[in-house]
């Protein structure tokens, strides 16, 4: 018979595991991460899915559990990830977590060979015999098997040491069945960041979340607001972070969290291969995550001064800089930035952006284009300060294409410029000296006006920052050149 414990409630981050440049466990950084999180969390989860447990050796898994136990030092519980594909390995890891001093084990459903429900049941029965509190973990996105409610109910009620379940499926009808069957008898945790509020409101005892590495304080606000019955406050906060958590859950979670923490000033390195930078967590996702971390009410990245050196003129501007942002930004002849945003396919935005001095190559190109072939080819100045030339990448043939380009895409580009002025990347004091060329692609079969606007807004916002910060870097190019996937390289 499972049972409910007092401590199993609240917000638990599924800790990422930092690796250094040689792919070794970076213990010092891991400790820093835990110390930073402790004030805002009710427990920690080392070696979970976000912690890349499946890419770690048993020794490494034990080491991160030991460190988490040391750092928590009895102040908060440590729920250690001990899942594995086979029963034997899972039992062994659970025994090790027990001797390492963890509070409980988080045991994911056995994966890869897709055992049947009764094989899953007997797997957990074997783990239960370790005599250590265990949390069942439903994660069909990775395991390929989804606990049905009857299996979950059976394990939760029949097994002696089960203290609860973490459901990361995001399948609310499944969770609703769990509440009906076992609420109050065991702890029910949600693991899917996008539906956490819905789960809290339905009676979930807490959450183990990837994004709680980034925004534990916001999650505490949401959790406490629901506990105190203030659903409206919780909704406002959940909506504020919805885009951020969607990026984390729907891209490669560990890489997203690591790049987010790095941008926040806590360098975390990359996830282990085969997770790649610019892979599941795409470069445009990084730009969006960064913007979200700056947003009001989240404020994890704050402005700092950066010097713009325009030859004869030096100014200091306050921008939402990351550790990657150079202290001094020079070379204003031509700055090149590329932005890409989607989905959907036909409404993808692709912006080739040039920023440069008005009296340099970019300014002269604008003069010549507008004086000569500009009008004939639909090239238009769409902003005066800074001067911005909008160029269609492909010839606009239909009236619909023209409307989408000159109204929706242009509006997106201009708004991105406006917001870049507000956030300091295009400081007001240089707007008479710099000019921009935005070469913008709108697919001939594009339909959804709102997406054309939104995607071009995003792509331009990203392109401006990338141009000014000089990204991507040479190192990124060298690291990714072999594996790069150009979408138009292949035949249908």
């Amino acid at each position, binding site marked *: 018979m499972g049972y409910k414990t007092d401590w199993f409630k609240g917000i638990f981050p599924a800790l990422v595991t930092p690796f250094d440049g040689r792919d070794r466990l970076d213990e010092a950084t891991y400790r820093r991460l835990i110390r930073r999180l402790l004030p805002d969390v009710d427990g920690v989860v080392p070696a979970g899915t976000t912690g890349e447990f499946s890419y770690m050796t048993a020794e490494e898994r034990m080491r991160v559990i030991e460190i988490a136990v040391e750092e928590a030092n009895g102040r908060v519980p440590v729920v250690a990830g001990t899942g594995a594909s086979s029963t034997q390995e899972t039992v062994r890891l659970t025994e090790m977590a027990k001797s390492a001093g963890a509070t409980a084990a988080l045991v994911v459903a056995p994966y890869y060979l897709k055992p049947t429900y009764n094989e899953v049941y007997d797997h957990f029965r074997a783990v239960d015999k370790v005599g250590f509190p265990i949390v069942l973990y439903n994660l069909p996105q990775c395991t390929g098997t989804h606990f049905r409610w009857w299996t979950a109910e059976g394990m939760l009620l029949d097994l002696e040491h089960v203290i609860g379940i973490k459901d990361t499926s995001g399948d609310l009808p499944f969770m609703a069945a769990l509440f009906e069957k076992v609420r109050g008898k065991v702890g029910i945790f949600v693991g899917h960041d996008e539906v956490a509020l819905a789960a809290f409101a339905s009676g979930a005892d807490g959450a183990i979340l990837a994004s709680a590495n980034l925004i534990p304080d916001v999650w505490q606000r949401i959790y406490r607001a629901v506990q105190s019955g203030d659903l409206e406050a919780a909704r406002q906060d959940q909506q504020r972070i919805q885009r951020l958590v969607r990026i984390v859950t729907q891209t490669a979670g560990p890489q997203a969290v690591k790049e987010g923490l790095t941008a926040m000033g806590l360098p975390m390195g990359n996830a282990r291969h085969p997770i790649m930078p610019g892979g599941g967590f795409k470069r445009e996702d990084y730009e969006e995550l960064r913007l979200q971390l700056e947003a009001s009410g989240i404020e994890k990245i704050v402005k700092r001064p950066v010097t713009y050196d325009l030859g004869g003129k030096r100014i200091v501007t306050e921008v939402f800089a990351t550790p990657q942002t150079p202290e001094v930004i020079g070379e204003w002849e031509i700055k090149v930035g590329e932005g890409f945003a989607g989905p959907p396919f036909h409404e993808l935005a692709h912006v080739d952006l040039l920023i440069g001095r008005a009296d340099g190559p970019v300014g002269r190109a604008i003069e010549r284009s507008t004086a000569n072939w500009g009008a004939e080819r639909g090239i238009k100045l769409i902003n005066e300060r800074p001067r911005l030339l909008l160029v269609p990448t492909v010839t606009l043939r239909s009236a619909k294409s023209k409307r989408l380009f000159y109204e929706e895409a242009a509006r997106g580009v201009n708004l991105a410029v406006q917001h870049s002025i507000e956030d300091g990347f295009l400081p007001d004091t240089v707007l008479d000296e710099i000019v921009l060329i935005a070469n913008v692609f709108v697919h001939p079969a594009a339909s959804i006006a709102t997406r054309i606007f939104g995607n071009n807004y995003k792509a331009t916002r990203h392109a401006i920052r990338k141009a000014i910060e000089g990204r991507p870097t040479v190192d990124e190019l060298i690291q990714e050149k072999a594996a790069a996937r150009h*979408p138009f390289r292949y035949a249908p």
Partner: protein
Amino acid sequence: MPIKVPWTKGVYPALVTPFLRETEVLDEAAFRRLIRHCLPHVNGVVTSGTTGECSYLTRGEQRRLLEIALEECNGKPVIAGCGASGTAEAIALAKDAKAAGATAILVVTPYFLHPSDKGVYQHFYDIATSVDIPLVLYNIPQVVDRYLSREVVEDLADLPTVVGLKDSSGNLTYTMELLEYVGDRIDILVGHDEVVLPALAGGVSGMILASAQVYPEVWQAVLQFVAEGNLAAARKAQREVQKLSRIFCRYGGGVAVKAALAMMGLDMGVPRRPLKAVGGALLHETRAEIELELERIGKVETPEIEFSYPEGNLAERFGALEITAAMISEHRLKIGSGTAGEGLNRVQIDLIAGGKGTPLGDSYALQLTYPQHGREALTTILEPALTVCPPTLTLPTLDQRNLRQANMIYGPMQLAVARAVADALEDGTIGREATQQEVMIALVTVHPKVVDRHALALAGQEAARGAVRQAFAHARASG
């Protein structure tokens, strides 16, 4: 007792239904033209099937299509598509088909409301017992969202009017299971153009295909070769049309078939809405690919294109960028050229690099306002959002007349140049200081008729490497 009929051993096109532009009205004359085009090469035809947009047709239109086909076919079998979501409508369509004189009816698994297997069985049972006409069952999970279960087929095959099953799933494990269970009682027809050969080799009798109105003679050959046991010849024939078959099956269906027929001079008008003639399931890029493939297999005449690879003094080949030999020498611009690949896959890349403050900087910025129409420059990327540095433009030297041609530049060539630049950064050919201070432009020439993206990409990479090496080695030697 089930019956086997002789006519299933053949090639049947699942005819598209032509509609007039603007009005979407059934175009009977075009439909007759289509049948006359197919008839010499096929064993019969199928009207109002999936490719014929059956779910957008009224009962009257389906009857009319059948009447026309019967008039045109001179006694060759005409199989009438009689698919419907509900049983009553399917029976009504079957009765129409019987009254008109159809050879058989083709009845798709009932769709939309996902009936149980019990309901699916009853659907076919009711049709088979209401109308005395040979019935071909039809499995197409791509649109029905479910398989016609083998267990249900096992029982349906005992009904006296059920003579066959068309399997469009392309899933050979399912096809083989059917042959195992019902192959002795009914005939199986393959309905998935990509797996015709393996399905025939596995034991199916014939085929009902979308592409059998585009290249029926290829399918007759495959059928014949397999019957003779000449698998090598059958493979060769199937492989010739593999890409087009894939496009018809997966990237556009009947819409893609209509586009192909139009290129061959048979105007079938538009699909009915919500389908788009292009820009929906059939991408513009895919349509361009169809044309090229039709040219390759000789269904469409190849237009002659005159062009040449740039030659002569390298320093004088950048005139289109407004860069003269004198400027190259004055501003110490780096130039290099590389060529690789044979025949259609030959690639030439002329590359120029230099400081942002030189005339090349002006040229770089100017190119992004496309002064040369049809030769638009694009920023060189390894993949979207992964721009190379120094900033590099990839620019075709020939006018890009269509999307397909453009895709050979903006896909394989862009990547080839990007990889060469990244390689040069890694091995130090391009120094890190250059990435902030310089820009580059790669002028790319590929054959306008090139089709092999893989060969092209490899040649492009080699040519780009050569050009980069020459440009930067030269700079080092003279600097």
